[in-house]
């Protein structure tokens, strides 16, 4: 097999037709919320690609992000690592251990200097010289800085690498920080979530492989295609919020009829992620569908934003008055309210959009 063989050639050798390949590209375009015309651009880019090198570093993490990646239905992990990328260093999946593993990373860093994509999961402890996490006798900081030098771009996978995550939660015993707190001279994309949705990880990789650049990002470094809207705004239970119908406990009539979980602490209104649209595990569901409020896991500092079961207090006045009115007047009146009082709802929406989890601290 030639060194310069392309993805399309490889797929064709494996019996994947040109037509199926184009279909795959179209699916990618849809997933990345790109115009249909970009499918051909994706096809052109992937047809030329030799598998780019990816180095994945794991620091203070629980391996949930890697586990999530293995659950990706499209592209699958198999197609990702066999057809799209060359995963040259990844603790959980690689065959080699010890010296041989470190050698594989060194080799990839040298051979693809300036070109490889660096993925990181887990936070980096800085306290006491970084002794709280070492690999092969080296601190995480040391290893990150070395690998970042030759990286074309960095992807911080999961809320720990993106924002510091659980290790960074108060009182942050090990001085854990995010990748972007350390590396300042490389493009970084934050794929937050605890863990992130697998299709979001693979989707960002596909975007990078296709266009040679990172996707459009929000102010927190997250791809807008997936983090552009709140869970709440895309939630299938949203109509019940608008009607003032709330589950009051976890197996009451409201809970069993799929009413809004706002009063049980759902953080959907302040959480930007694609769970409600992309869903989890091949469309099998997402947290709210399975009766538990969103815990806000793709937002910075969500671990320190109060109990998961305390209702969001802001925009407290507006929502409380709506739901109180609903409670007093009954379901019919609530329906009428939602139909007539559009201005008020808009106001609620506006104030909600300004709300961040930082605002909720201490509530």
């Amino acid at each position, binding site marked *: 097999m030639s060194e310069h063989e392309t993805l399309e050639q490889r797929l064709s050798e494996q019996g994947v037709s040109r037509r199926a390949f184009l279909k795959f590209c179209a699916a990618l375009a849809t997933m990345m919320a790109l115009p249909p015309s970009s499918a051909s651009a994706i096809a052109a880019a992937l047809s030329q690609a030799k598998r780019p090198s990816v180095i994945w570093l794991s620091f203070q993490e629980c*391996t949930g992000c890697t586990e999530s990646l293995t659950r990706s239905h499209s592209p699958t992990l198999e197609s990702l690592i066999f057809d799209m990328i*060359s995963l040259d260093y990844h603790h959980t999946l690689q065959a080699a251990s010890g010296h041989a593993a470190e050698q594989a990373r060194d080799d990839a860093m040298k051979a693809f200097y300036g070109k490889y994509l660096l993925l990181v999961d887990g936070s980096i402890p800085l306290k006491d010289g970084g002794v709280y996490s070492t690999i092969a006798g080296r601190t995480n900081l040391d290893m990150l800085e070395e690998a970042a030098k030759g990286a074309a771009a960095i992807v911080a996978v999961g809320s720990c690498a993106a924002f510091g995550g659980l290790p960074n*939660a108060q009182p942050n015993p090990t001085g854990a920080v995010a990748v972007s707190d350390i590396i300042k001279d490389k493009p970084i994309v934050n794929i937050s979530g605890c863990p992130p949705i697998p299709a979001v990880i693979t989707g960002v990789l596909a975007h990078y492989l296709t266009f040679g650049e990172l996707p459009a990002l929000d102010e927190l470094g997250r791809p807008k295609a997936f983090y552009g809207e709140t869970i709440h705004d895309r939630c299938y239970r949203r109509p019940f919020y608008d009607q003032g119908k709330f589950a009051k406990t*976890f197996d009451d009539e409201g809970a069993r009829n799929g009413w809004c979980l706002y009063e049980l602490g759902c953080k959907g209104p302040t959480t930007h992620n694609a769970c409600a649209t992309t869903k989890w595990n091949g469309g099998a569901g997402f947290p709210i569908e399975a009766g538990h409020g969103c815990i806000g896991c793709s937002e910075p500092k969500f671990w320190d934003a109060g109990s998961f079961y305390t209702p969001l207090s802001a925009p407290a006045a507006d929502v409380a008055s709506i739901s109180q009115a609903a409670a007093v007047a009954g379901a019919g009146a609530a329906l009428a309210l939602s139909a007539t009082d559009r201005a008020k709802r808009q106001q609620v929406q506006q104030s909600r959009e300004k709300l961040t989890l930082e605002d909720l601290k201490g509530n």
Partner: protein
Amino acid sequence: MSRTVVVDPITRIEGHLRIEAETDAEGRITQASSAGTMVRGIEIILRGRDPRDAWAFAQRICGVCTLVHGIASVRAVEDALKYEVPANAQLIRNLMTGAQYIHDHVMHFYHLHALDWVDVVSALKADPKATSELAQTVSPSYPRSSPGYFADVQKKVKGFVEGGQLGIFANGYWGHPAYKLPPEANLMAVAHYLDALAWQRDVAKLHTIFGGKNPHPNFLVGGVPCAISIHPEQEGKGRGPHHRGGEGATSLNIVGLANVQNIIKQMREFVDQVYVPDTLAIAGFYKDWSTQGEGVGNFMTYGDFPEKGISDPSSYLIPSGAILNRDLSVIHPVDLHAENEIEEFVSHSWYDYSVGKDKGLHPYKGETTLHYTGPKPPYENLDTAKDYSWLKSPRWKGKAMEVGPLARVLMMYAKGHAQTKELVDMTLSKLDLPVTALYSTLGRTAARTLETKIIADAMQGWYDQLIANIKAGDVRTFNETKWDPSTWPAVAKGAGFMEAPRGALAHWIVIKDGKIDNYQAVVPSTWNAGPRDPQGQDGPYEAALKGHKLHDPKQPIEILRTIHSFDPCIACAVHVTDPDGEELVKVKIK
């Protein structure tokens, strides 16, 4: 000439593990030291928080055995508050835990452990037709076994190797003489590596239906979060005045339940048709591993999978107890609350104790002060005569205990569990090995496979019971009575335990004025991977490696085989920190 062989990172595990092994002139390991090299401090982070939130924090101890810490946590809070959960919630927890075992064990076998036994590159030499014949002999009912299928898989691997981009397979110890499988068996195993990747994606959906996502599904103190959105007509009651539609409004609807049934079927088929036959087939080539890698010879379980609620141990599928020195005729009772039974030592760990580093402390009195005394990074070697790990050394009545699949299978075998006995006897007779072969690297790996079958079969019973309850009109999944913290006593203490895939797991909680005052977890991989104690007794990993002969110290595949047979989970094992070094509250339970 003696030398120190260092393996860091140990890959294909969860977390950050380092092994340093002293070898003699023949390359035989005379002493091994197991070091956990990462710590986060989750218990400290938990202090002062709402106990009902604890499960989400604790669950992030590990994303591989995702959910086990969530379950141990809600059980700890429920134990403290004497909080009963509805029958359906218990069944759903059983189903979720069972699914976790099956998912986790299969992935461990194919994606983490297999490459110690399967030479990927050798698969290129296989004849696809002969591979097909082998596959159809090993597992006559598994459909993906045609010559064309194996030829395709081989082509895929070939492209990888010849393209010079081996990716995750780069720098494996391919061609090492310790690899004994014929090319056809290697090719079959590589094909099943890929099949298992696809399979696990689908069966993980069971957690999504009940818990909203996987990894890290959601849990709830007092029950399970997912309401059942099926509204059965109750006899004589009709649909009732409260019924206002909403049929199917949650993922736990009729479609979700049918999906769960389908997943249970898929799980059992893969276990029966692929996992069990592959384990037996591969084991047949590695019988030399049935006499090494045992470890400490002591085994412990806490028990799990209650049929009638956690307070009735007689209804557990997996019983609780301790086995000492391989003596299966005596099962010692284990009491999590007795202060002279479970103790943690720090004499070789990077922690201080106010009572002195050579004393042990029960988790209730647990006291942990981070104190790193190891070499300044970057370093070449740890000082294994002194402190060398972020793991503590748990002991039961002063003894190092192995926990996990081998402990559970031995416990069920010793207690005369019929299916366990049948499976163990079948395995030993097929491999023509004596019962002592269980106490080995091979035995541990086989035990994991056998318990997967036992649990996969049990899943159907829990599912049937859940359906029967719903049919009878019982759709309760949550007990609201103690949800409100104003109903709690000022101080409450409890322990939650479970059998996680990697072994006995327990969390201890102290609640004061509605907040977490203290939180402690002693987890399976701490039992297995912890360092030596003040008496110089090795932890199970360390003991298991002793006597291994390394064919080539630069390619220490022998170390990987035995360490992987325990399925390390090091993020789990290291997490207990208390930088303030306060004396933790003394707790008495029951």
